[in-house]
């Protein structure tokens, strides 16, 4: 059999993406409305944040600009899951209706084929908003701009993004076993709101849950410490890239296990 390596998959993804974008542009009204909706969503999130900080100028020792940095960091880190993995939201409908079977008839990885089908443009607005916020907070805090810091930022942004991808993979794949997987997804997706706050506000059992079981703390808090407190970086921050990769890998395996276990009943 001819081999399908990373290069094949990257090329294939690009081709599908280009076609998808082209067809999306052709629905202008849809495009404009969703862009508008995206801006409003981000604005309302931001306003909530401002109101909160108007009343509590400091959260657990974190001042306004540090919190703002964390906020922007989480927005950027949540972009990949929004842009590239949005089809996970459709998984349960496909599985319940039996339409999912069509993804199993192509000579490519089922997860890739399924995920490649949807690219959500809305995530790009969030990305722009997040970058703007990070840059603003960066300047106000006065973090030095060196190539090393920028590199660290990129690496740890990427790391942070892995956790939400993994969580959503896990949540979506539950639909292969249970009917009410929609709730699991919504709950997981809600958890991301905690990512905007320093994990140090959680105590005891919650701290353990949000660090190791549902690792929300890694979506922004631990990775951003590498930039925010370079002199005092916890060990968890340094191992987060490895932990992220393992977590994504496990979620992928779980997803694929679901495909294998699923009976494809009904025709």
């Amino acid at each position: 059999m001819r081999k399908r390596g990373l290069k094949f998959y990257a090329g294939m993804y690009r081709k599908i993406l280009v076609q998808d974008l082209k067809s999306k542009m052709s629905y202008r009204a849809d495009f404009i409305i969703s862009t508008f909706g995206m801006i409003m969503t981000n604005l309302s999130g931001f306003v909530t944040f401002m109101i909160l900080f108007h009343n509590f100028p400091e959260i657990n020792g974190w001042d306004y600009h540090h919190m703002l940095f964390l906020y922007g960091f989480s927005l950027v880190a949540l972009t990949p899951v929004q842009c590239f993995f949005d089809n996970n939201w459709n998984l349960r409908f496909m599985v319940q209706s039996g339409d999912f079977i069509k993804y199993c008839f192509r000579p490519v990885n089922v997860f890739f084929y399924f995920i490649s089908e949807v690219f959500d443009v809305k995530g790009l607005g969030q990305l722009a908003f997040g970058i703007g916020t990070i840059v603003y907070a960066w300047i106000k805090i006065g973090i030095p701009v060196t190539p090393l810091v920028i590199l660290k930022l990129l690496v740890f942004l990427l790391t942070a993004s892995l956790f939400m991808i993994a969580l959503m993979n896990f949540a979506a794949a539950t639909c292969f076993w249970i009917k009410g997987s929609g709730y699991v997804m919504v709950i997981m997706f809600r958890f991301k709101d905690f990512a905007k706050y320093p994990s140090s506000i959680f105590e005891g059992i919650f701290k353990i849950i949000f660090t190791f079981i549902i690792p929300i703390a890694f979506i922004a808090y631990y990775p951003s410490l590498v930039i925010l407190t370079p002199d005092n970086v916890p060990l968890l921050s340094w191992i987060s890239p490895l932990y992220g990769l393992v977590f994504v890998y496990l979620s992928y395996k779980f997803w694929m296990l679901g495909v294998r276990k699923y009976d494809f009943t009904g025709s």
Partner: protein
Amino acid sequence: MSDLSVNEAVVMRNVCKDFKVLNRHEGLKGSIRDLFSRDYNTVSAVKDVTLTVHKGEIIGYLGPNGAGKSTTIKMMTGVLEPTSGEILVNGKVPYKNRTENCENIGVVFGQRSQLWWSLPLIESFKLLRDLYMVPQKDYEAMIELYRSLVDIDPILHKPVRQMSLGQRTLSDILAAFLHNPPIVFLDEPTIGLDVSMKAKIRELILGLNKEKNTTVILTTHDMGDVDALCKRIVIIDKGTKIYDNDIEHLKNYFGSYRTLKLKLADDTWEEYLIDEKTTDVMDVIMEKQKEKKIKDVKILEISTEEVIKKIYEGSAK
């Protein structure tokens, strides 16, 4: 398995497939109990099916709803693993080499389009070409072949979501043949289509089978499909193979059967199954006319369901 079976398109030997189904209880209390219940029932969808499909053949795979047709197809396509027994598709075990198996099969599954919903057909074709790594030369030759068999130009630049059901089915069939697979599975390809579209699709399938010597495994409830396409049919009911022979053979037994429908004065229909070899249809009509007023008469060929029923009742022995 013998070496010979490697040269067949599909070989199934004593294939069984069981599903575990949870015994559900009623009410809220029952649902909570189900959460922890280990109370499973085993349902046999396919029981001990042995079947050989030769290269280049078009076979009709028939059976009533829930007979186990789809389960068999899903096993042949490598989506499901048989509980026991052996399957070879193109000489390989499909479940163990799913991606490799997928390269060598084409699938059209019911009314579910497998194309990219929002893309024009030609773009879907190009993506499939890349996905299956079809050389450009072969791809172009295939498009030319399509052009000679059907009028594809009006649909080539149309997004799939704007197509009529007929156009979509046509597109799906073309897409399934695009990488020139040795075997194509067609699951009810003409369901819901009008008469002329049905004819067009049957012609296309025949044409492609002839040109490329593609093995076609067709499941359908439409006897018209079977008559137009298949020389051989396999019938399965309740998971067991109950008929596997030429269509001629089937017709010898049931071709003389007619379904006679009579519309009575109160607008209700009465149905009679008549064997023309022994009884003349006209006699029956005249007989009935003496008893009651008949408003309308329909004489139909025996339906697939009735053939299957007949066979299942053991008449074909």
